[in-house]
């Protein structure tokens, strides 16, 4: 076990869904029949093809089956190996991106019931995000209402790129439900791919796709701030998952500078955007995206301007760091470890505090 991370709360791990057959027991008769009749099975996200390098660190790759699907392996590799106290399961699967609203809702509901029955009930260290069909905000709200009473669900999960920018009023019912139940909303790297994932068109290669992820997060943050979501829902918390970290300072600086000149267009943004983001937004720490140099990491942390922002995560089984590096970004100040591994996650996820009380 890694002594550094013992007792940490891992805010981003990914149990894998073996396939749609796994979920059929958690669907009604119509959907069971429909999936079998159509022979439709492969609902993995295009963002994480099972064989792609980022989808699984080589030493974590199972001999058979998709990454993250073997619970014993996940518990050994993601929990035991790091001494993790709690880990939040963020299931990435096709329900969140299906073009059909009702099919998307059926898959999301099945995933939530499957994760509760077959993961949360079998290891007390596990917690989960409620996956919801953002394609249909009213159905997403129904799913939140259905599950909010189960306190093992500590967050709501959305993809970074959806059908509209998240500040649009179309999505406000989701923010209202999240705030009502004290559930942060995790926005995870990945896209519904309704349109090109960059503002200039479709990238051709992994290189471009991986490096450009932060653009989608920047857009969503700007949308949430400028449309006034945090003014309307002052208790809403957003967690950026697998977003990277080091891009944030420059983005914050530019958002403040520009706001000073054009703020009269968005008068409900009454404070510098950086302050709003520091109050409402948290980021997981894998990937961190900086050189393994304590001086440079220290500068990034200074520029973030708050010690509350970062949450420890391994992003298991995604390949963000090498075994010899450890899950904490090289160069990260030891004095902040307890903060990011325990205190910040507990402050971000009120439901985790309950389980420790």
């Amino acid at each position: 076990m890694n002594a550094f991370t013992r007792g940490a709360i891992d805010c981003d791990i990914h149990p894998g869904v073996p396939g749609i057959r796994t979920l059929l027991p958690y669907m009604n008769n119509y959907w069971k029949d429909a999936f079998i009749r159509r022979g439709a099975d492969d609902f993995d996200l295009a963002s994480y093809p099972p064989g792609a390098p980022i989808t699984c660190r080589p030493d974590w790759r199972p001999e058979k089956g998709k990454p993250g699907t073997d619970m014993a392996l996940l518990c050994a590799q993601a929990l035991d190996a790091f001494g993790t106290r709690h880990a939040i399961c963020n299931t990435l699967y096709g329900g969140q991106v299906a073009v059909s609203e009702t099919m998307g809702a059926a898959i999301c509901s099945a995933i939530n019931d499957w994760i509760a029955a077959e993961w949360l009930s079998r290891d007390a260290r596990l917690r989960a995000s409620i996956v919801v069909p953002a394609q249909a905000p009213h159905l997403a709200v129904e799913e939140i209402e259905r599950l909010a009473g189960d306190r093992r669900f500590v967050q709501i999960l959305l993809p970074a790129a959806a059908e509209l920018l998240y500040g649009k009023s179309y999505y406000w019912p989701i923010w209202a439900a999240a705030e009502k139940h004290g559930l942060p909303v995790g926005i995870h790297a990945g896209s519904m791919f309704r349109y090109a994932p960059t503002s200039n068109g479709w990238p051709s290669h992994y290189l471009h796709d991986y490096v450009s992820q932060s653009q989608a997060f920047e857009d969503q943050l700007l949308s949430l701030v400028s449309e006034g979501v945090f003014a309307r829902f002052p208790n809403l918390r957003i967690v950026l998952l697998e977003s990277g970290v080091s891009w944030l300072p420059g983005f914050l600086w530019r958002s403040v500078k520009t706001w000073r000149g054009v703020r009269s267009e968005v008068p409900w943004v009454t404070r510098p955007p950086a302050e709003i983001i520091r109050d409402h937004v948290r980021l997981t720490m894998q990937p961190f995206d900086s050189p393994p140099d304590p001086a440079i990491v220290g500068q990034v942390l200074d520029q973030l301007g708050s010690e509350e922002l970062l949450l420890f995560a391994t992003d298991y089984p995604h390949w963000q760091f090498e075994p010899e590096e450890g899950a904490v970004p090289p160069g990260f100040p030891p004095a902040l470890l307890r903060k990011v591994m325990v205190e910040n996650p507990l402050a971000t996820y009120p439901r985790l505090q309950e389980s420790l009380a």
Partner: protein
Amino acid sequence: MSKHVVATVADLPPGSRKLVTVKGRPIAVFNLGGEFFALINRCPHQGAGLCEGEVTGLVTADGPGTYRLTRPGEIVRCPWHGWEFDIRTGQSWCEPSRIKAKQYPVEVAPGTALVKGPYVAETVGVTVEQDYVVVEV
């Protein structure tokens, strides 16, 4: 500090502004409905002349998507980057406690008082018949 006559009141009607130089400093003098205010003509950001900026009202909101326009004519926007300054105080809207344009006291004095001194009237000839805008620098 000394008091300087910079204009006649008739030269600076309500809603107007005038750039003057006092002790070598560029100063923008504004008339807001009969009240006079003077700010250094240098934006604290990068030094643009505030006197050339657009004068607007204050836009606020009760919530997302709502707009309220108040205090017409009392806000000047820097011509370079649009930062807003309260003409009455020199305070910026964005960070009022930290970012402000230096303000100078202004008063209106009748020519009958001015001719007795100790005012400085370098560029404006003073006669007893008129009222004058006096900036203290």
